[in-house]
């Protein structure tokens, strides 16, 4: 009985998709192997959120993470970025437990409003995130910024490969 249950929850990697659905909107989807209430917990409790929001390969350190998940509550993430600090912050606009979360990104003009919905099916949860930008130009610029960031990470990856190779010698 137990063995059967174990095989049902065998880890499985699902596909992440990103699509630009309009001039102002990006949609990201992914199915996570767990019920919506647990995915919700991981998204709304700071001590869990900080375990996954910054994948290790990003090479960034999360200095602090405060999430006040209620309508009108705010969040603030502070990263170490070289010698300086970089903050991401905003306000929760809609909070429907286990189902829907909407927040603003207020680092500057042109930041998107993000909506994520949690849909549970057979013990797994489909996440659909919408990033709605104020204009086409803002999305283009946001994409450029994300690209610049990603390129930095690629450089970091290369550095790690080099370091790894020299350590093996």
């Amino acid at each position, binding site marked *: 009985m137990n063995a059967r249950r174990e095989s049902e*929850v065998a*880890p499985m*990697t*699902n596909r*992440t*998709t*990103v*699509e*630009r659905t309009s001039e102002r909107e*990006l949609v*990201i989807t*992914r199915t*996570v*192997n*767990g019920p919506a209430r*647990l*995915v919700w*917990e*991981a998204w709304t409790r700071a001590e*869990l959120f900080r*375990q*996954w*929001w910054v*994948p290790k*390969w*990003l090479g960034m350190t999360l200095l602090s993470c405060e999430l006040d998940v209620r309508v009108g509550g705010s969040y603030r993430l502070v990263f170490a970025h070289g010698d300086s600090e970089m903050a991401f912050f905003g306000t929760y606009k809609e909070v429907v437990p286990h189902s829907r979360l909407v927040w603003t990104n207020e680092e500057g003009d042109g930041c998107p409003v993000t909506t994520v919905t949690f849909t549970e099916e057979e013990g797994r949860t489909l*996440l659909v995130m919408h990033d709605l930008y104020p204009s086409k130009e803002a999305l283009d610029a946001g*994409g*450029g910024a*994300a*690209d610049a960031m*990603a*390129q930095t*990470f690629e450089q970091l990856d290369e550095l790690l490969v080099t370091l790894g190779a020299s350590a093996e010698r």
Partner: protein
Amino acid sequence: MVQYAQTHFDASFAALSDPTRRGVLEQLGRADASITDLAGKFRMTLTGMKKHVGVLEQAGLVTTEKVGRVRTCRLGPRRLEEEAAWIERYRQLWDARFDELDKVVEELKRKEKVDERKKRE
């Protein structure tokens, strides 16, 4: 979207298969030019050059703008390829994030099971 990219690729390929059109792209890489300028440089009729520019325009390689009686041609932004590149990088970031989220949720599920067992004991 994939379909659109394929069509776009085919159009680019057809546009680049002609030596005059490749020459026009090279020329526009140096400076913007009117259809009349291009027709003169490539010793062609205006109508012939308009056709070539039309093909390049459809492929997204060239954009044109008519001001008064002059149509100016310049290199197109070829946004599709740039956009596909940053969307793919963005996807990789989210993919990595969600892989970590899976681990956190897996750990929560494991803890719940342990708690259930404890309750039963």
